[in-house]
């Protein structure tokens, strides 16, 4: 019996994961070096590919498939959102390892790149919500001589909204533009939207963690000091879906 015979004998066991962990590692190490075994286990895997379907299918609980889709897509978003932080952390660690003085410039460049990356990913993330939006709502807003509007892109897959407020002046002193979710049980405070230098304000919003479903949205000019859960200022937009 040659040493290779052991691998031949255990191909089926490797495919079924019946080898002991130590033996499995041995086989794993062998595979990249042995074309014959690689081809044979690939053939076995292909020919036995349907065997797992002997398992009894399990009916997913209500809502599970949606949660699964959501988790896969949000996981990507999580990495995108944290990519800049991770890149910055890596840059800091690199600088510390190599010596701060000598590599300060490198850290600065890394930091700059990380910031650019963060902005790029944020834009990509925003665009992905817009691209996937199954529904888009637009409302015009008139404030004095200004003619602006509010756009809401509703992504039904990730359950996020992308909100764009444009064409409006900066909020009057002591006030803010406040975005609200309208639910069956009342208004839920969301984000402040800031218009500066006539540039549009963007926000990507998760659905609020409330048991009542979201039925619409509203935009108010809110006293900056109002931190309550109820709007007190004039309403610029109210949308019912």
């Amino acid at each position, binding site marked *: 019996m040659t040493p290779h015979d052991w691998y031949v004998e255990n191909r089926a066991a490797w495919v079924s994961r019946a080898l002991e962990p130590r033996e499995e590692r041995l086989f794993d190490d062998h595979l990249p070096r042995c074309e014959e075994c690689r081809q044979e286990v690939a053939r076995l895997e292909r020919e036995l590919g349907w065997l797992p379907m002997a*398992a009894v299918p399990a009916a997913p609980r209500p809502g599970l*498939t949606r949660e699964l889709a959501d988790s896969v897509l949000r996981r990507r978003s999580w990495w995108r959102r944290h990519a800049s932080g991770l890149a910055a952390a890596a840059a800091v660690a690199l600088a510390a390892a190599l010596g701060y003085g000598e590599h300060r410039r490198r850290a600065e460049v890394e930091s700059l790149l990380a910031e650019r990356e963060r902005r790029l990913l944020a834009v990509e993330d925003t665009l992905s919500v817009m691209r996937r939006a199954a529904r888009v709502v637009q409302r015009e807003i008139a404030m004095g001589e200004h003619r602006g509007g509010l756009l809401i892109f509703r992504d039904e897959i990730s359950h996020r909204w992308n909100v764009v407020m444009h064409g409006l002046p900066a909020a009057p002193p002591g006030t803010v533009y406040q975005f609200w979710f309208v639910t069956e049980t009342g208004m839920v405070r969301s984000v402040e939207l800031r218009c500066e230098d006539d540039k549009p304000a963007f926000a990507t919003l998760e659905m609020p963690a409330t048991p009542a479903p979201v039925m619409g949205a509203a935009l108010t000019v809110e006293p900056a000091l109002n931190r309550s859960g109820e709007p007190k200022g004039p309403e610029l937009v109210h949308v019912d879906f």
Partner: protein
Amino acid sequence: MTGQASLRARLVARDERALVELIEAATPWVLGVVLGMLRDQDEAEEVTAEVFATAWDRVGTLGDEYQELMPWLLRVARNRAIDRLRRRSRLRRKAARFQAYEVATSAPVPFREPDESAQPGWHVHRSVHAALATLPEEQRVVIRLAYFSGFTHSEIAQHLGVPMGTVKTRLRLAFDKLRTALAPIRDWVP
């Protein structure tokens, strides 16, 4: 087969609707494989999520040897479940699983007929069971323990009270028969 190839092409093209379709079609089978091994609903759902994340990440890099999507997905599911099993505290968990296995196998073969024919892929399930039914009982038991419960050779040998070489031989003979019996099965369209 065309439908699945199309689904795969759409997944490669990063079509998120295709991901939703894949999840809706494949979840009962992926969850069934994983739950059968882990016997823990929460953990099975976690692994199922990992499986679809892997599918989404890697579908674009699959080689030509993976013409069919479902077998690959189920293999990922099975491997993930086994990885989980091996991370668990072995003795305590496996004692419980052996007991559960005794209960499961003392009942008739877990082959649910009612209302299942509407399940996409159910005909494949029936074909695989038909193939398993042609095996001698001692080979079928080894397949169940190794392939569907994630036990290693030595654990199976210990459980059945037979030499490890016997376990290996039974597994190999069973696979030789199954690879012929399963060969005609073709992909099903989700």
